[in-house]
Structure formats: C-alpha cells, structure tokens
C-alpha cells in the first residue's frame, strides 16, 4: 500500500474533470430541472471549433476562453430552442432528458461531418512532468487541476456573493416565488446554461490536451461525473464537486487495489451503499413529503 498517496493524488487530478462536469450538470439541473446528457458533447464541439482556431494561429490560452464562450452560447441556444418550448408537463424531466440525448446524437453527427472520424491532434499547454509521491504527473494535468480549482472557487463566489448568484439560488429554491419578487426566470435559465456548458468546455479542453481530440472525449468522464453528482446530491453544487473528486479517487483506488476489470462495479457498489444510507446523496436535499 506504499503507493497509496500517489494513487490518491492522481485520482484527485483526474477527478477535477469529473468535478467540473458534475458542477455543470448540477447548475443546469437546479435552474431548469433538466438532466443534460449533451453537456459533454457541447463542450467537445466547442473544443473542436477552438482547435481549428488554434491551428489557424490563435494563442492557446485565448483558445480556452473561446471554448468556454462558445460552449456557453451553445448552452443558451439549447435552452432557448429545445428546452424552454417543452413547457412543464408531468413527465418533463424524462422528456427533457431524451431531448438532450437527441441533441448529443446530433452533435456527434455534426462533428463527424465537420472533422471526420480520426482523432485530432491537440496542443499540449505545458511540456514536462513532475515527480510527486513517486509518480510522474504531467504539468498539463496539474495545470488542469489548478484551473479547475480556480473555476470552482469563482463559481462559488458568484453564487454566494453576487446578487444575481443569490437570485439564481432563489430560483432553484422556488421558481414561482422568484418570479413574484421580480427575478427574470429566463435570464436565470440562460446564465445557468451558459455557466454549466462553459465549465464543461474547460473539462473537455483539458481532457483533449491530455490525450487527443475525438468525438467521444467526454463519454467516460461524463459517466463518472454523473456518478459523482448522484453521490454528492443532484441539488447541491458543493456535493457535486466533492462527488466528482471522490469518484476520481475511488476509481483509481479500486482499479489499483481491487480489480481493474470490476472497476465500474466497485465504484457503483460504493455509491449504491452510500445512497442506501443517504437516499438523496451526501449533501442533497431530502425529499419533502406532505403528511
């Protein structure tokens, strides 16, 4: 067990991508009750677009900002054109879910048409590696974790301290009352989708820098992000971040010490166990039932 610290550190580093995606999922869910299955694909599409710009000479750090903005705008367009028109029927949650599945397929097809099937090369942000607890971590990964941390702190500040952030939390709490005090629900939804998809683009960006750019970039991280969301609680932003990191660590620990081939089963077994103790996730709001 001598390499446990190393396994944990690399788990935290890979967990930062899960935590970002998880945070994006939760921000969008809280504002519009939509489980966005297309969040990873929107981020990936934005990174494909910026990759083309970077290849044409755009500085890489501007590329990151461009990816965030493009994904955010795609998010706003999605909410306006596909989600809002659904209205609020009884089975809204699952109808919206299927719409985002459909959108994911469309984006996949779009990437296929625009860039073909072969993985694209993506520039590395910083060269080199560093040794930590006896394992080599690329500077690329460490930078990714650092920027992820900064993004999460910025989001926390936004929701806690700015009036608009408070208004967004109020809308998540009681949307009808929010309208009654004069909060513009349309703007809240738009900003939530912008933020959610924007931070998903950060995750996609670093995932691409870490390996290569391909249409299935976020497939498996998104799946782990969902696991993190459920672990932490679908309604809690802090829970999503903690959940994302926890999954990163659990995944690495299970893969290293238990069995590489039953990795997913192990991770999910732990989540199921936690959910039986806390049915709404570790930090999620309990169900309100009228007696």
């Amino acid at each position: 067990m001598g390499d446990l610290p190393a396994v944990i550190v690399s788990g935290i580093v890979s967990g930062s991508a899960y935590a970002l995606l998880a945070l994006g999922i939760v921000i969008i869910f809280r504002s519009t009750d939509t489980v966005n299955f297309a969040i990873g694909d929107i981020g990936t599409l934005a990174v494909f677009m910026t990759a083309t710009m970077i290849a044409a000479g755009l500085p890489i750090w501007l590329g990151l900002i461009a990816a965030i903005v493009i994904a955010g705008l795609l998010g706003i367009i999605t909410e306006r054109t596909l989600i809002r028109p659904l209205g609020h029927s009884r089975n809204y949650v699952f109808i919206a879910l299927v719409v985002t599945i459909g959108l994911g397929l469309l984006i996949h097809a779009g990437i296929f048409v625009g860039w073909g099937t072969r993985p694209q090369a993506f520039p590395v942000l910083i060269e080199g590696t560093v040794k930590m607890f006896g394992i080599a971590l690329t500077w690329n990964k460490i930078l990714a974790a650092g920027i992820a941390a900064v993004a999460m702190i910025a989001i926390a500040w936004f929701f806690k301290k700015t009036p608009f952030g408070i208004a967004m939390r109020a809308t998540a709490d009681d949307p009808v009352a929010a309208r009654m005090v004069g909060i513009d629900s349309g703007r809240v939804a738009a900003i939530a989708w912008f933020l959610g998809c924007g931070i998903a683009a950060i995750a996609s960006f670093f995932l691409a820098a870490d390996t290569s750019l391909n249409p299935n970039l976020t497939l498996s991280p998104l799946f782990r992000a969902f696991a993190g969301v459920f672990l932490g609680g679908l309604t809690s932003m802090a829970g999503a971040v903690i959940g994302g990191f926890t999954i990163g660590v659990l995944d690495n620990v299970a893969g290293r010490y238990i069995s590489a081939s039953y990795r997913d089963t192990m991770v999910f077994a732990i989540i199921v166990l936690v959910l039986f103790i806390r049915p709404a996730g570790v930090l999620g709001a309990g169900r309100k039932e009228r007696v």
Partner: protein
Amino acid sequence: MADTKTKGGTVAVAGIVHRYAGVLALNGVSLDVQPGTFTAVLGPNGAGKSTLAQILCGVLRPTQGSVTVDGVARTRRSRRAFVEDGVVLVPEGRRLFGQLTVRENLLLGAYGARCGTVEMHRRLAETLPLMPRAVQEGQERAAATLSGGEQQMLAVGRAIMAAPRTIVLDEPSLGLAPILIDKVYEVLGQLNASGVTVVVIEQIAAHAMRYAKSLTVLDRGSIVYSGSATDDAAEEALKVGYLGHAT
C-alpha cells in the same frame, strides 16, 4: 430613488375574466385601487381572491380584461411581475426562499426591483427595524427555520425592500395565531401611514376590517360590493358575500 416613490401608486383592473383550464375563477371584475388607500378584498374561499391578487401584481396574466399601472396598460407583461413598477405581492403561504438566509431573502426583494448594491443596503438598514427580533438577530439563518409569524413578517419585509408604492398581501393571517396577526397588521398600518397603498386579501374578515378604509367583497368570481369599509352597506355586503341571500 425619487423615481420609485412616484411609480405604481395606482393599480386598476377592468373587465377581468380568468379561467384555469377552463374553470371560471373571475368573471368580469373591475377594481380601481386609489393611491394611499388601505383596501380589504374579502370573500369566502373559492371566490377568486388569490387569482385577483396575482393579476393585480402581474404574476398572472388574465384570460381577458385589462390591467393598468399608473394609467399605462400592463396586460401583456407578466414574466417579471410589476415589481419594477412599484407593485409588489406578498403571496399566500409566504413563499420565502427557505434554504436561503434571512438576509438574502430581504436583499432579493430589492434586487427584483432592479436596485443597485448601495441602495440595496440602505433599504436593508431601513427595513430591519420593522422586523421581529429573530429576523434582526438571525440574518444568517436559513429562512425556513423561522416560526410562522416571523416568516410572515419576513415576507412583508422582502416586499418592503422593493420600495413599493402598492403592496398586495394574499391571506397574511393564514395559519397565524391572532396575536401574531395583530403584529403583521400593525406594520401594514405604519406602511399605509407613510403613503404606501395597501391591499389585503383575506378570508377571515375581523382583522382586515379594523384597518381597511375601503372594502371589496368578492363572491364566486364577481364583485358583490365595492365601497367604504365602515358603513352599514359594507356590513350587509359581507353577510351576503359569505352567506348568500338566504339569510
């Protein structure tokens, strides 16, 4: 902020018809709320009172009829209610943001009225003295942890933060002990004395009648009385409104 002091003093609705999924809730209601008055809208349950309150404040868009604020037609606007126009609703059941802090709840009242940060904190300092102790001292508490009476006062406080010229309260006494209802009405009386138009919607007449100068009685979607709250006609109208003509 001189601007907000002049906006939203007069709210009027005319020929309002409203249906929920086809079920008639209001049938041809017209009401002029004069600036600076204290109006009680009374009526038995199912009379359409809450519907009227929501239409007055722009929370609900009527099926038919017109709504004007300061003489300007506002029928089509409903996404952000009329808060910016100086008309604020204190909804039935209070509808505070339970998971947010007391302070955040109050600040949101001002935020909804498109008010800047400095003004927001100035209003907070003005509003807090009107609030019960638990609200003043527990600003970082989650609003849901307050008692029923404290929550009702906080809901009134949140509305005051918008610096309204007209404040509409939907059943502020619901579920409160009489002693707490008195406290709520005391604050409403103070507000009215400072020039704010007050409209209370109530099912139980007793408290509202003590403060209101004008009275509107609603029964099954129509106005059956509208006028002074003090003369005999008003008393007769109440009886009829609640009991029907059989008595």
